[in-house]
């Protein structure tokens, strides 16, 4: 089998030996219900308090809640805003748009212009393109940093923040809600998952800025190489987080392209209709950019950015071969 290069963290996160060791220790020590007034419950509560303390100290926020997913974290973050109308960019995730009354149009770079009253749900980084929403000037907001927290030093402090453990290399299934205001008590997910996510966050926290700069340089070099060697490729969005990049390869269908890349050892995502559920990505549609032949990378923390050098070469060879096979090389 060819060596595998994981370029899309949404494919999942492999469990390392270190992950398993932390998970096992926390599962053995903290299996009790931390709300139960027994020795077992208190032991679990001790694990939970240690995790909360670590996240508070790393993030600088006074309160943290652990929740099973981003949707529940968003619902909890919006709760203090009551019945205020909720607004998000049309490029936000569908589950977020389902909780918002207004989806605002974006320009061809994916940038939203905030308007209206109520509360904004701001993307610290769009899930497909990495595009960073500007902060609203005249609206309170909740910051959905589920694709950014742990990956950048450039997050504003001052609003409720949603984080997702899969972004920084922990297995998914856990979201954080951070705030300076007290948070309502919530039944915590399994403590072993929390301990693992907090350890993984601790592992990357102090080096996140350096990683971000290395990743930005590698992704920029990749884009320059692709633009120079492959005709008719459109990259989507300028102002974005370092590790996420989306581009469309004209005249190829994404399913054929992503399968060929997978066979060559490169795991990527796509927002094209033929790979998704038959409808094109609502993100690319909102930006009005080409949706076919789409490739998305969202580099996991564990992937060395230099892997993109080899990927650029394989991509160029693959695209050329597939375009010749499809009879579209001269269009």
């Amino acid at each position, binding site marked *: 089998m060819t060596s595998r290069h994981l370029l899309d963290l949404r494919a999942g996160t492999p469990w390392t030996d270190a992950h398993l060791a932390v998970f096992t220790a926390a599962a053995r020590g903290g299996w009790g219900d931390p709300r139960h007034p027994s020795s077992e419950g208190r032991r679990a509560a001790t694990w939970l308090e240690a995790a909360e303390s670590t996240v508070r100290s790393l993030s600088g926020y006074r309160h943290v809640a652990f929740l099973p997913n981003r949707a529940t974290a968003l619902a909890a973050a919006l709760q203090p805003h009551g019945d205020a109308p909720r607004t998000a960019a049309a490029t936000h995730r569908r589950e977020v748009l389902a909780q918002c009354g207004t989806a605002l149009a974006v320009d061809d770079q994916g940038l939203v212009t905030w308007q209206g009253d109520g509360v904004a749900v701001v993307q610290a980084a769009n899930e497909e393109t990495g595009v960073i929403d500007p902060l609203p000037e005249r609206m309170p907001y909740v910051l959905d940093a589920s694709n950014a927290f742990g990956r950048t030093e450039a997050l504003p402090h001052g609003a409720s923040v949603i984080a997702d453990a899969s972004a920084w290399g922990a297995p998914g299934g856990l979201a954080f809600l951070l705030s300076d205001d007290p948070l309502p008590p919530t039944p915590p997910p399994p403590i072993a998952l929390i301990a693992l996510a907090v350890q993984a966050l601790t592992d990357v926290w102090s080096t996140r800025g350096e990683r971000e700069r290395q990743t930005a340089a590698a992704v920029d070099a990749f884009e320059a190489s692709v633009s120079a060697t492959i005709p008719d490729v459109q990259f989507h969005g300028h102002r974005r987080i370092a590790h996420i990049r989306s581009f469309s390869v*004209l005249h190829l269908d994404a399913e054929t392209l992503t399968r060929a890349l997978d066979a060559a050892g490169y795991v990527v995502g796509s927002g094209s*209709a033929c790979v998704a559920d038959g*409808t*094109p990505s609502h993100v690319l549609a909102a930006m*009005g*950019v*080409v*949706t076919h032949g789409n490739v998305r990378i969202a580099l996991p923390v564990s992937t060395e950015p230099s892997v993109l050098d080899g990927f650029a070469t394989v991509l160029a060879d693959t695209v050329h071969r597939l375009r010749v096979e499809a009879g*579209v090389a001269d269009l």
Partner: protein
Amino acid sequence: MNLDCTGQRCPQPVIELARAAKTAPIGSLIRISTDDPAAAIDIPAWCRMRRHACTLVADCAGTLTHEVRLGG
């Protein structure tokens, strides 16, 4: 020139348009009909990249007709 691309899925309608545009002279008009949801986005997006003028002239029961005036 008329292109009937109804029934075709992404990216075939864009490929057919690109093939037609390759041989037609600058300034010519291509009418293309599609019923694929991706084509509704991709045909105007492709035209912007290639600097062709694109206008949606009909939307009938999910079948869209775009008129593309080929630019230089």
